[in-house]
């Protein structure tokens, strides 16, 4: 008996590596784990499986901050996955330089990515020395504020149309026992909310000077001080949030426990899963209702180099599947993001998404700060903001000075 079991186990260990080597299973790692996100990933898997290959899901829970180190150490450690998600921007810059990622130029040229992907800056951030290393998947914009209509009704004030009206409604919300602004405990959330306030309240030009040109004087200017003053108020409005994850914070808005959340358009997926309708149950304000822009952050897929030819072929198939018109529509409708192709039909999009598409069509776009600043700088700025957000004794002036010092040394 025992010998038979041992033999079976041995046989299994021999068969297993062989199986992996010859099948066109492709392991895809990503950090999409909330309800709306998982539904969107299922669309990608369905489309890829339809090509005769197999999508092996490698979801890593805990958000990008947790997932990226795992992905990077797998790639640099010689255990590359078939494909992996990163955000648009500079997160994979050094992996490309080290020659660890697959060159997709051939597929890209064959399928005319250059003409169909808009805005062109997305493909530019995939391009290094004239070669294309990633497949952009969607556009996510941080520049949104989500409001719970029910919460404002309960407080007896009309749903605000911009940040300044929201400010006036806060006392009424607080009196009704509603948290005015939900900001989760994870540090990227306060950083993100701050960046959105920067675009909306300091204006596009000042934002560009600080975040793109890395001009420290602009970061010290009275224009930018407005942002810190607003953040000072926002940290007081959000102090009763007491949840960690972004989707828990969104859930507070969905259930009306909180009145508003500043969060990227991925929050919309949560409203959809909860069965809420834009305009009726919740309201969205692009650019806090002050400065309607879309920042073109989002996700792209990168393909680590593989030893096995078969897998490389499957990678190319996946790359072209991701940019397929049908996949783009199916995925982005579920995800609440905007497709990277300008030539798809989005009649099924809801009110908020249509607002976003309008702004995009008008060309009011900004790069995402992850595309202009290195992860190192982003991390330093995040430290300043999250400390400011949680420490009432730090004045806005002190935080602004620290922030400007980092911008002065940014790379």
């Amino acid at each position, binding site marked *: 008996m025992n010998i038979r079991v041992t033999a079976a186990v041995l046989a299994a260990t021999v068969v297993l590596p062989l199986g992996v080597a010859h099948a066109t299973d492709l392991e895809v790692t990503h950090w999409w784990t909330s309800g709306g996100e998982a539904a969107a990933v299922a669309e990608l898997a369905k489309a890829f499986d339809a090509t005769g290959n197999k999508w092996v899901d490698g979801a890593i829970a805990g958000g990008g901050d947790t997932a990226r180190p795992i992905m*990077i150490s797998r790639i640099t450690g010689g255990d590359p996955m078939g494909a992996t998600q990163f955000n648009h921007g500079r997160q994979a810059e050094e992996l490309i330089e080290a020659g660890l990622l697959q060159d997709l130029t051939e597929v890209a040229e064959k399928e005319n990515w250059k003409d169909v992907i808009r805005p062109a800056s997305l493909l530019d951030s995939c391009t290094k020395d004239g070669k294309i290393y990633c497949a952009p998947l969607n556009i996510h914009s941080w520049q949104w504020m989500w409001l719970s209509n029910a919460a404002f009704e309960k407080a007896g004030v009309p749903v605000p149309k911009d940040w300044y009206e929201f400010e006036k409604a806060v006392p009424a919300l607080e009196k009704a026992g509603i948290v005015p602004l939900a900001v989760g405990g994870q540090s990227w959330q306060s950083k993100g909310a701050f960046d959105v306030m920067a675009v909306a309240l300091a204006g596009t030009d000042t934002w560009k000077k600080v975040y793109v040109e890395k001009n420290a004087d602009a970061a010290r200017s009275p224009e930018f001080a407005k942002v810190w003053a607003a953040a000072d108020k926002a940290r007081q409005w959000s102090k009763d949030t*007491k949840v960690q994850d972004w989707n828990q914070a969104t859930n507070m808005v969905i259930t009306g426990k909180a009145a508003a959340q500043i969060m990227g358009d991925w929050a919309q997926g949560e409203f959809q899963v909860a069965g809420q309708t834009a305009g009726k149950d919740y309201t969205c304000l692009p650019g806090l209702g002050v400065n309607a822009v879309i920042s073109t952050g989002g996700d792209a897929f990168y393909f680590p180099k593989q030893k096995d030819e078969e897998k490389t072929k499957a990678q190319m198939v996946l790359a072209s599947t991701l940019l397929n018109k049908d996949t783009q529509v199916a995925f982005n409708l579920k995800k609440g993001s905007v497709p990277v192709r300008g030539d798809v039909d989005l009649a099924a999009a809801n009110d908020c998404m249509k607002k976003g598409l309008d702004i995009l069509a008008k060309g009011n776009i900004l790069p995402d700060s992850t595309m202009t600043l290195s*992860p*190192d700088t982003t991390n330093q700025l995040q*430290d*300043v903001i999250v*400390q400011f957000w*949680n420490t009432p004794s730090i004045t806005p002036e002190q935080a602004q000075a620290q922030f400007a010092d980092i911008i002065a040394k940014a790379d």
Partner: protein
Amino acid sequence: MSVSAPEGRRSGLTRNIAAKIATLPMILTALVVFLGGTIWTVVYSFTSSKLLPKLAFVGFDQYERLWGTERWIVSVKNLMIYGVCMLILSLVIGFILAALMDQKIRFENTFRTIYLYPFALSFIVTGLVWQWILNPEYGVQNVVRSLGWTSFNFDPLYNQDIVIFGILIAAVWQGTGLIMCIMLAGLRGIDEDIWKAARVDGIPMWKTYVFIVIPMMRPVFITALVLIGSAIVKVYDLVVAQTGGGPGIASEVPAKYVYQNMFYAQNLGQGFAASTMMLIPVIILVVPWAYLEFSGRRRHG
């Protein structure tokens, strides 16, 4: 044994050759992995390595930036407060518990198991358990308030000034049991005759402990010290599970800074510089211990 014994009369190098060959892998591991890895890290801490290690030297830039970073300063301060309190508390509580256990009490086995049990839990589990206990809405504060003291306030994990003590409570709870066991073993090693002699001379019990027994237990204390010391320097998972470094950056610790920079911020150089700084207290702890240990052994032959 039978092979090496006849060969044992040859020169020093070939004596016990089998034993030497057997320890070779361990020696290699120690040299290559521990020493080599340490040297590699120190060397690369002087470079501007980002995501991947590169030999582009920048002198002391990484260290300058490290000591100019608020978060690192907070981390070091936290580690110092945590370290001093943890060292004193776990030694004192561990010894007192051991001394009490040594009074030939009934059900000693049961008590020993109860005290040692937390040590069987990982820091992650400990952290999560204490996160709940210290949560103002579900834990201690709520229980005391529901007993009638409605003004009672106890939310260390949500208060920047005392958050590190919230972590300390969990660490002491988890670590003291082991120290107690080591101390108890030490106490059992003290000759019964010494107690008898002290009793004949009419020395009070506490004096016997403080002036006779504790000095005799020196090696035990050193072992306990090294164990506690290394646990202090590497504290990481407890913080991650309990507070995630929050609120804000109030409960950050050096190990977390290293991880954050190496893997999240893609700045290896900065992470290496921080971990080199962490190595220094370890060396300060380990070198005297090794010295005592080895010189002591030689003395006893």
